[in-house]
């Protein structure tokens, strides 16, 4: 028997769930296919949830979503081998509801989101891998799943199948990912009693801290580290571009181990019990690396479409927003009695262009290229900054003016005046 749906959504992460939820809520007949045992069992994120993107889909999500802690403090560390120079922003404003950002544990959060999707009327099938798209000429008309009678058909197939998106590659929509456009991140979750987390980070019940890190922990590679506080656990990890990983001899887990041994990080996780080790690719190629995201009978959302703002460490909000805009596009076309042709689906691109998703990605379109060509931002500057701080903060009878002169000399020796000016210009261009 041939089953036909209005829409098939492949994948039950944030983008797929956003799309499936809104489509089902609008009364469309939706099938969602997830390869994991349950939604979330294949998904990995830091993880920070940005309220705004979810609020536009499920306004009252705070009532029952599994949220760990709302963020009241953000730290940025620039690390040398034994030290870091940091900045902190902490505000009581962040303690006023509605909270803007939360830490979450993805396996739990995705399960919750999926329950909402099913309540909205979508049919979810788990433990099922979609092996291929079914084509009629250039048009996608369904998917082939790895179970008996696994061919299902729909007017539109939404590819929310994550960073690897094998389906788009098999169908010839995308070439293989370029190592310079993806970062490999590894992370661990360490459990500690709730009161220990709160004392260690100087936070109250439900309050959370985010620490983003750059510098020696990536051993010269373009990348960052992070540490987030959950209710009674801490997640920490490090990610670097695959093109850089390809060039050196440190394994990802050795990198993570060394990060955990950093004298500023070790005490924060001391005594914790590590309960899971995960790895995941993050599509960080930015605007210039965005592949084809729609065609006859298909739309692409989330990581599969490279929707990650690497500069601001945002991804799940772009995923949910792109899922929402994809659903809105399909609903609008249905209402107007239009078919899901590439020309009609261009509306999705218009909606994206009009949203923060494309605007932010466009704003930082030069950033990946600049950072790839200028590893000094991950090596030389963190070292120079830390040495300068160390010098100024060590009281040893040397006058401050001499110290300043020495610091300036160090900067000039490492980067030269033109190098320094060039770097400042590059950063200005990247952020402009």
């Amino acid at each position, binding site marked *: 028997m041939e089953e036909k749906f209005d829409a098939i959504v492949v994948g039950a992460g944030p983008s797929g769930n956003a799309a499936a939820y809104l489509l089902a809520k609008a009364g469309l007949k939706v099938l969602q296919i997830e*390869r994991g045992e349950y939604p979330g069992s294949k998904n990995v994120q830091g993880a920070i949830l940005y309220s705004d993107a979810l609020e536009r889909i499920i306004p009252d999500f705070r009532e029952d979503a599994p949220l760990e802690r709302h963020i009241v403090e953000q730290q940025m560390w620039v690390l040398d081998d034994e030290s870091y120079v940091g900045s902190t922003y902490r505000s009581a404003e962040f303690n006023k509801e509605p909270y803007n950002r939360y830490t979450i*544990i993805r396996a739990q959060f995705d399960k919750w989101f999926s329950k909402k999707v099913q309540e909205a009327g979508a049919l979810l099938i788990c433990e099922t891998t979609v092996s291929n798209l079914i084509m009629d000429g250039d048009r996608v008309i369904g998917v082939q799943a790895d179970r008996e009678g696994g061919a299902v058909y729909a007017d539109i197939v939404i590819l929310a199948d994550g960073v690897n998106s094998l389906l788009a590659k098999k169908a010839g929509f995308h070439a293989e990912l370029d190592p310079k456009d993806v970062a490999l991140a590894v992370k661990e979750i360490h459990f500690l009693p709730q009161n220990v987390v709160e004392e260690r980070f100087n936070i109250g019940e439900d309050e959370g801290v985010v620490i983003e890190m750059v510098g020696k922990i990536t051993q010269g590679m373009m990348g960052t580290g992070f540490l987030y506080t959950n209710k009674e656990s801490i997640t920490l990890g490090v990610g670097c571009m695959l093109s850089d990983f390809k060039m050196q001899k440190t394994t990802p887990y050795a990198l993570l181990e060394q990060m955990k041994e950093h004298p500023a990080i070790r005490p924060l996780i001391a005594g914790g019990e590590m309960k899971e080790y995960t790895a995941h690719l993050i599509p960080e190629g930015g605007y210039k690396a965005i592949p084809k995201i729609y065609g006859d009978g298909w739309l692409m959302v989330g990581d599969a479409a490279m929707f990650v703002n690497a500069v601001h460490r945002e991804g799940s909000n772009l995923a949910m927003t792109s899922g929402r805009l994809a659903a809105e596009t399909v609903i609008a076309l249905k209402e107007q009695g239009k078919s899901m042709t590439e020309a009609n689906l261009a509306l999705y691109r218009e909606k994206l262009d009009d949203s923060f998703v494309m605007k932010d990605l466009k704003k930082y379109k030069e950033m990946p290229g600049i950072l790839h060509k200028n590893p000094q931002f991950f090596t030389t500057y963190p070292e120079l900054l830390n040495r300068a701080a160390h010098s100024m903060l060590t009281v040893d009878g040397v006058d401050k003016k001499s110290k300043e002169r020495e610091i300036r000399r160090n900067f000039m020796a490492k980067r030269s005046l033109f190098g320094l000016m060039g770097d400042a210009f590059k950063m200005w261009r990247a952020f402009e």
Partner: protein
Amino acid sequence: MIKVENKLFQNRYKVDAGHPHISIRNPDLCQNECKSLQCTVCCPAGCYTEEGNGKVVLITDGCLECGTCRIICSEFRNVEWEYPRGGYGILFKFG
């Protein structure tokens, strides 16, 4: 020397015995042509190991399904990479 096995030990897997989802297309390429063998370095689960004679052995049981090996093998495109069958493979408890 950090043992990745100690980390993977914390994870939950449903291994699809006899059906590895990743395979090396042409083992001769790894042994004779590839100089870098970066799969043996970059795989976050240490699934790839080099034997003394330059032969690469792949055991997918600890795979975290990230996709790194497929993408970094850009010179030879020698990694056949599929997702595990539905329900099999890594099962993240926290993710």
